[in-house]
């Protein structure tokens, strides 16, 4: 306890604040990515995807298979972890592998949609949600089999290194998380302006009227599942970079629960709102990280428990004040 206080004094209140803020932003980025995955699938298909946990983890698993085992055997890439730290080629290769992992995750999403979701279209929404829960349960054992007990390594070319911003320790991975989420968010917003994206919003607004325009609703569903799965996977991959809690690995303990922790985010932001996913992710992560940093100092009864509880408190409060979230659509249309 004394050492902790000493350390706190050494770092200084200002630096601690900066560190906490950056950490909140980084965690928020992970939440935003996974929340966007939920929102796109829900918006297009009205299905709340409870398989997001297993699907996102599977996507992160693809990434570890691609890189930790010395590169995917069929691809001419070397192990991106091999180049010396800071080497541009290694970093580029790393992100090429991320894109391949996302493509694989997208294909997994397509298969799930085709096999388990499409045949069930028209079933009550609750039944659909339970079906996704079944998918979660079916995929989870594969994930757990594939991860060793202590998790699969997910090394990054920049390691666990950090910058020193006037005494504040800022891990490079945190900045990567923020940039990746920003690029993904902008891409999603851009997608919604394209032909297919406009069609997806049309399907979300009025499925039958969209069909009457000749929009292929099945294709829109497939694309939503592909995108939603890839975004969730991206969130899980980013979360596997040290110094996020799984410590540079896809963890058997932490990763399966990651998507569940995003539920307060989408309730806060609104199930069908992209802006809601972004604001919700940042707000919940900020509340969580600040509670972990400051509430546990102020009163140590719960320790790190504060950071677990606070997101749900924020969510409960929001449900009382605005039942459809910050940006959600009040009534869910259904044909």
């Amino acid at each position, binding site marked *: 306890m004394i050492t902790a206080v000493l350390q706190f004094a050494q770092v200084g209140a200002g630096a601690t604040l900066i560190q906490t803020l950056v950490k909140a932003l980084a965690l928020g980025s992970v939440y935003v990515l996974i929340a966007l995955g939920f929102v796109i699938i829900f918006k297009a298909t009205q299905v709340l995807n409870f398989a997001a946990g297993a699907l996102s983890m599977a996507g992160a698993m693809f990434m570890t298979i691609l890189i930790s085992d010395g590169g995917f055997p069929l691809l001419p890439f070397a192990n991106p972890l091999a180049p010396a730290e800071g080497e541009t080629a290694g970093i580029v290769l790393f992100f090429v592998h991320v894109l391949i992992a996302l493509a694989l995750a997208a294909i997994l999403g397509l298969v799930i949609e085709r096999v388990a979701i499409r045949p069930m279209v028209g079933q009550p929404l609750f039944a659909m949600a339970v079906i996704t829960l079944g998918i979660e349960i079916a995929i989870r054992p594969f994930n757990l089999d594939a991860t060793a007990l202590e998790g699969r390594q997910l090394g990054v070319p920049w390691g666990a290194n950090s910058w020193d911003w006037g005494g504040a320790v800022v891990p490079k991975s945190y900045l990567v998380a923020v940039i990746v989420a920003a690029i993904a968010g902008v891409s999603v917003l851009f997608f919604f302006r394209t032909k297919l994206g*406009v069609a997806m919003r*049309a399907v979300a607004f009025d*499925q*039958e*009227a*969209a*069909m*009457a*325009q*000749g929009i292929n609703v099945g294709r829109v569903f497939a694309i939503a599942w592909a995108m939603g799965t890839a975004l969730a996977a991206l969130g899980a991959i980013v979360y596997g970079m040290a110094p996020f809690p799984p410590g540079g690995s896809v963890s058997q303990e932490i990763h399966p629960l990651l998507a569940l922790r995003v539920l307060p985010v989408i309730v806060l932001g609104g199930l069908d709102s992209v802006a809601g996913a972004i604001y919700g992710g940042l707000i919940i992560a900020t509340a969580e990280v600040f509670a972990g940093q400051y509430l546990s100092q102020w009163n140590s009864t719960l320790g790190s428990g504060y950071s677990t509880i606070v997101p749900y408190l924020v969510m409960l409060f929001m449900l009382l004040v605005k039942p459809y979230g910050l940006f959600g659509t009040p009534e869910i249309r259904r044909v």
Partner: protein
Amino acid sequence: MLEVANLEVVYNEVILVLRGLSLQVPDGQIVALLGSNGAGKTTTARAITGLLDVHEGKSTKGSVTWNGTEITEHLPAKIVEGGISQVMEGRRIFGELTVDENLSCGAFTNRANMDANYDRVMDLFPRLKERNTQVAGYLSGGEQQMLAIGRALMADPKLLILDEPSLGLAPMLIEQIRDIIVDINKQGVSVLLIEQNAMMALSIADFGYVMESGKVVMDGPAQKLLNDEDVQEFYLGLHGDGGERKSFRDVKHYKRRKRWLS
């Protein structure tokens, strides 16, 4: 030419709504389909455009044929691609999308000629041009109807089905919409005009059908229907004594016609 022959439609496997409906829309004509609430007009439109599925409906007998090809079981996208577009009852514009985005949805199956079709729609509806970046949900009822028609035209259809385009519009707007339908028809688009406003529909139609309880109970050239006493009494309220609305079947001069059942 569109040909509906002895069509039967059942909802939820039990509710028989169309009972052997037959009608034709020859190329280049405006054909009116009249009938009171619940007669099955919207169901007819759904059956032609492949939208029964969404409503747990199924055609159990008969056929829909378009230019010689049977399309009864085709998917909506294929039917739109084939040249049949529908302006659905209640307009059904995408309220959260802009006017331009709504129009872009209409062009989903016909991207190649999008610019030409867009210009044509804007010529027909200058009002939409002024509001092209506005969110469609904030348009007035008349503008929304124009958008719904414009959106359907973006697919460059050869047959346009309009389901009660006059619904909820002021008389002046109804006249405007009517004139626009005539203009569209002059550009070479056949029109199936579903209406409760019989006067409006018959005033521009070449031919008319009156349906009740899922089948056609009367048909003929529009002018003849306009002059028909039964139609006048029941739909135009010309001889009515202001009492309760009778069923068309009860109007005394009415004679059942069965020739399409042969």
